[in-house]
């Protein structure tokens, strides 16, 4: 939301692709991930157990699914703070359907449908009516979760059909969970969408200069609408996984998810003001976050202290490069 723009520096020589790759944010993340992995395996003898590591992926798979869509949304210059609330509403809708006796496929369709509807609502307000994304999604955050509270009050839905448990508790092969497979498919899908299609190029163009993008014939409103739709859809997917894993729905489900999703995206090197970022970075950032929280968990660090680490991480990853640049400029 800051607006002071300094002139962009134009490079006076070409850098080789190899040195660029080595100096990239992704390379730094990879080093950090490996370092945390080694530190963790030294700090706790239980870390290297394959089943423990498999369990650890639950720390980030659901959030990372949303983070891919959120990354594209932020690259286009928008943001969606209502993702946690969309999960709550989608989970509540599934819970209502479950009490009416709906079978698993219907529950899944309803979860996805609710996510899409919420995303469409956000997209309509932001892309169509031109309202600022931050306040719109702060508003829908209250609205969506508020509807869950109206339906559920202080109660909860439990007793999902056993077939539904497959999404959050099932294994495809050995220690590979269903959620991990969804995570990998989402990473590939969004990676291709952002880096290999016209739609991805349009996303970058809009994030860098929406007016120029409009003049070059990109239907800015429609692209932004679709991005909100995708974020809603992925929140619906995450709602299915989370509800299935917990086996219950409370209105406070996924509270504060938006913070961790945005942290993963920013940690992944996506510029918060839009215009740049990569899916590879987001995947690595999700791994780093997962490893950090799992490692701290093994060391008996309470959840709220971990959230300090997450918050500090969010600020540090943005502050340190800027501090470094300031010091070098003198």
């Amino acid at each position, binding site marked *: *939301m800051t607006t002071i723009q300094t002139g962009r520096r134009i490079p006076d020589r070409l850098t080789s692709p190899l040195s660029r790759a080595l100096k990239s944010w992704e390379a730094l993340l990879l080093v950090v991930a490996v370092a945390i992995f080694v530190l963790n395996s030294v700090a706790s003898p239980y870390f290297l157990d394959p089943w423990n590591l498999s369990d650890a992926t639950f720390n980030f798979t659901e959030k990372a699914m949303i983070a891919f869509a959120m990354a594209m949304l932020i690259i286009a210059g928008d*943001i969606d703070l209502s993702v946690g609330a969309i999960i709550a509403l989608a989970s509540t809708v599934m819970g209502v359907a479950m009490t009416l006796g709906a079978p698993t496929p219907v529950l899944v369709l309803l979860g996805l449908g609710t996510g899409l509807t919420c995303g469409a609502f956000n997209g309509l307000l932001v892309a169509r009516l031109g309202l600022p994304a*931050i306040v719109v999604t*702060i*508003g829908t955050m209250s609205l969506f979760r*508020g509807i869950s509270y*109206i339906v559920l*009050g202080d109660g909860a839905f439990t007793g999902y059909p056993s077939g539904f448990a497959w999404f959050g508790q099932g294994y495809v092969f050995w220690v590979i969970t269903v959620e991990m497979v969804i995570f990998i498919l989402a990473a590939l899908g969004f990676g291709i969408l952002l880096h290999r299609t016209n739609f991805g190029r349009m996303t970058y163009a809009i994030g860098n200069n929406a007016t120029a*993008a409009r003049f070059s014939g990109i239907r800015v409103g429609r692209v932004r609408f679709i991005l909100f739709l995708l974020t809603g859809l992925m929140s619906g997917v995450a709602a299915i996984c989370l509800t299935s894993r917990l086996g219950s729905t409370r209105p406070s489900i996924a509270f504060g998810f938006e913070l961790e999703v945005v942290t993963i995206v920013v940690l992944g090197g996506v510029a918060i003001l839009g215009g740049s970022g990569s899916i590879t970075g987001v995947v690595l950032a999700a791994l780093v976050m997962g490893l950090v929280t799992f490692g701290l968990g093994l060391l008996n660090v309470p959840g709220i202290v971990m959230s300090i680490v997450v*918050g500090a991480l969010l600020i540090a990853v943005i502050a340190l490069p800027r501090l470094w640049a300031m010091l070098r400029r003198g």
Partner: protein
Amino acid sequence: MSLLKSREAILALAILGLLALIASRFPGFVAPANLAAVFTDSSPLILLALGQMVVILTKCIDLSVAANLALCGMVAALMNGAGIPLPLILIGVIALGAALGAFNGMLVWTLGIPSIVVTLGTMTIYRGVIFLLTGGAWINAHQMSPAFKAFPRTVIAGLPVMAWIAVVIIAAVALLMMRTPLGRAFYAVGGNPHAAVYTGISVGRTQFAAFVMAGALAGLTGYLWVARYAVAYVDIAGGFELDVVAACVIGGIAIAGGAGTVAGCVMGALFLGIIKNALPVVGISPFWQMAISGAAILIAIAFNAQSQRAPGRIILKRAEHRT
């Protein structure tokens, strides 16, 4: 005619309409004593919304105010437990709140990090620090001294001290915004940062001042909150930052900065306060409140955008309507 068009007038009419609607079924709600109680109950929201208003005017946002409030409230309770007299506690929490706000402001000013990222981070950090201070323990009423609890409730001339503090702060902020160079600088920075620089206003320093002010108000409110409800724990005022932003948005503070008034902000907070207090009276479950304030935010933003859209704008202006 121009009076009818101003946002404050419309908001005032909306509040009167709301009150009339409630009064038509429960006349007791609009009795002066009850309205005073509603105002007192809304005081924390008003104080925080005023701080948030100043931050939003400078094109920033502070999502850490509720966490700041909770941390300062806990520190106030701990200071009270250590036997420190009330005036020192008050000075202490205001200073602490200002320092926490200054931390946000420094990151925004010197490193140019977007305020939403900074305050999303400090929001969790400040709450985490409360846990580190207490190990998650609660401080309950019997662990607080009577004077500590009594101060916000002491009635002077018909209103509790808490309400008087709100009145004084509203007047002080109004004076600051309208009559001092700093107050005008807040508007200038938000209205057009580049022009502000050319007139000799430092954008970063003004934003820093806004964060310090919001922080100091959150610190003061932290003490009032803890003393009034006579309990302090990690999660007090959880999610309150959304109510604060909602009050500002409903009050017509433009989220893009540079436009908004103290009167609008106070009325936005009162609007939410009246709804919150009226729901149980009208017999609607309090669980409705979250959805209602969400809907109120959305209606208010749509309404603000409608009135700001000048006729005959150049083509493609919509592409620039972005945060």
